């Protein structure tokens, strides 16, 4: 009989093979790196929760043919500890997809003891499955935003991508940037400084009134988290900053990837709504200094006014989905009273078996 059970260490080579097959990578040369990656992220991470494990589907004849990854994050709702389970990746061997293995894995995962399940990188089929399993669309977070820093370089980059050739594209963008009129950089209020783990922990506690549902970070988790972020297979250098007011008060923080002559992808902007605009200004200036031509992020309630002021345009992104048996938690997320961002999601969890991302961060 086939069964769904928690991931065991002995399953890791099979999981690595499934992922390599899914990505079209050579399963032999990528195996060791992928096994190490899944050991770090699915078994050995400091937030591993044996009650909400990664699940595998074991076929009686073919062995492990499917996996539903589990990334558990400690959160707090008012004064109550809650467990947020970020599901993914969901990978099923092509021969077993028509048999509904993916649906069975998702169903089993959603039945777990977590207080809230969140998925921030769902494709259309996962969206349909989750909805049919009584999940909900996190509508706001299923929309992205974009701010063009340098219209000339942005247009050139888009054109260069169409005509092909990364080196040629980079050259064209650099020339366009050099030819574009230099805007005078307006000094911003406050100051952005490197974001230390302790400062982020303190900041989130300061934001408790704005976000009754918020992450409950600790030093061990953040050390692990930022190391994985820096090594993830996402274009650009990891940048994390704390923004202080002129009087030294911490106002907010941001974490993003900045790709020179490319896109700056925002992973988290943590600030109360009243301070989000200034923190966003620092973020955009930082991305511009790093050479990005466009900033992109996920739409979140506390960013609304700041994004409106900046006249950011909206863009389609992956589905964000939620599932919970606790209507109060769902109401907190839908009502903008939760700091639930990509930092605590799965969006950036992408293995890099070729070592192209060396872990650089600033």
């Amino acid at each position, binding site marked *: 009989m086939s069964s*769904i059970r928690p991931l065991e260490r002995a399953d890791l080579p099979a999981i690595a093979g499934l992922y390599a097959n899914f990505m079209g990578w050579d399963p032999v040369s990528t195996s060791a790196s992928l096994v190490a990656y899944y050991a770090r992220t699915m078994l050995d991470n400091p937030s591993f929760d044996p009650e909400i494990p990664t699940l595998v589907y074991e076929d009686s004849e073919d062995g492990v043919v499917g996996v539903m990854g589990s990334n558990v994050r400690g959160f707090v709702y008012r004064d109550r500890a809650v467990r947020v389970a970020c599901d993914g990746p969901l990978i099923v061997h092509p021969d077993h997809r028509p*048999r509904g293995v993916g649906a069975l894995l998702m169903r089993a995962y959603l*039945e777990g003891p977590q207080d809230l399940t969140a998925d921030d990188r769902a494709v259309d089929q996962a969206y349909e499955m989750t909805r049919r*399993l009584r999940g909900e669309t996190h509508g706001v977070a299923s929309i992205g935003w974009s701010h063009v820093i340098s219209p000339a370089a942005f247009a050139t980059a888009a054109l260069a991508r169409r005509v092909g050739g990364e080196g040629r594209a980079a050259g064209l963008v650099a020339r366009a940037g050099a030819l574009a009129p230099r805007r005078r950089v307006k000094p911003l209020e406050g100051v952005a400084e490197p974001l230390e783990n302790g400062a982020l922990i303190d900041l989130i506690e300061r934001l408790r009134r704005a976000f009754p549902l918020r992450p409950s970070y600790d030093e061990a988790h953040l050390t692990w988290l930022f190391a994985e972020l820096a090594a993830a297979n996402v274009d650009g250098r990891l940048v994390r900053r704390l923004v202080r007011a002129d009087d030294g008060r911490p106002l907010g923080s941001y974490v993003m990837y900045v790709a020179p002559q490319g896109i700056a992808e925002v992973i988290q902007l943590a600030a109360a709504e009243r301070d989000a605009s200034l923190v966003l200004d620092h973020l955009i200036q930082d991305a511009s200094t790093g050479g990005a031509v466009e900033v992109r992020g996920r739409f979140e309630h506390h960013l609304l006014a700041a994004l409106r002021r900046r006249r950011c345009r909206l863009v389609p992104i992956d589905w964000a989905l939620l599932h919970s048996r606790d209507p109060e938690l769902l109401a907190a997320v839908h009502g903008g009273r939760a700091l639930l961002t990509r930092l605590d999601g799965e969006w950036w969890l992408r293995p890099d078996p070729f070592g192209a991302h060396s872990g650089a961060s600033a």
Partner: protein
Amino acid sequence: MTDAAALTKRVAELIEEVLQVEVPDPGTDLVAAGLIDSLALVSLITEVELEFSIRLPIDEFDLSRFRSAEQIAAVVADLAPGRPVA
């Protein structure tokens, strides 16, 4: 009509309602016929649970017993023995 036959008939009707397909025969293998994929299975599981007020097993869901109206009816009968068919 026996209880088993009535249950199979109700399951076949449910499959037709949920999947919007015609079940040619209660013994038709829905997987082999290409009528069940992940989405269809999720819908079918959910509707079978609602219709018959049962909980299908999660960890050991035996797909080989969920391939035809007859087989699904047998699973329902195992989990809710003696339940009258409306």
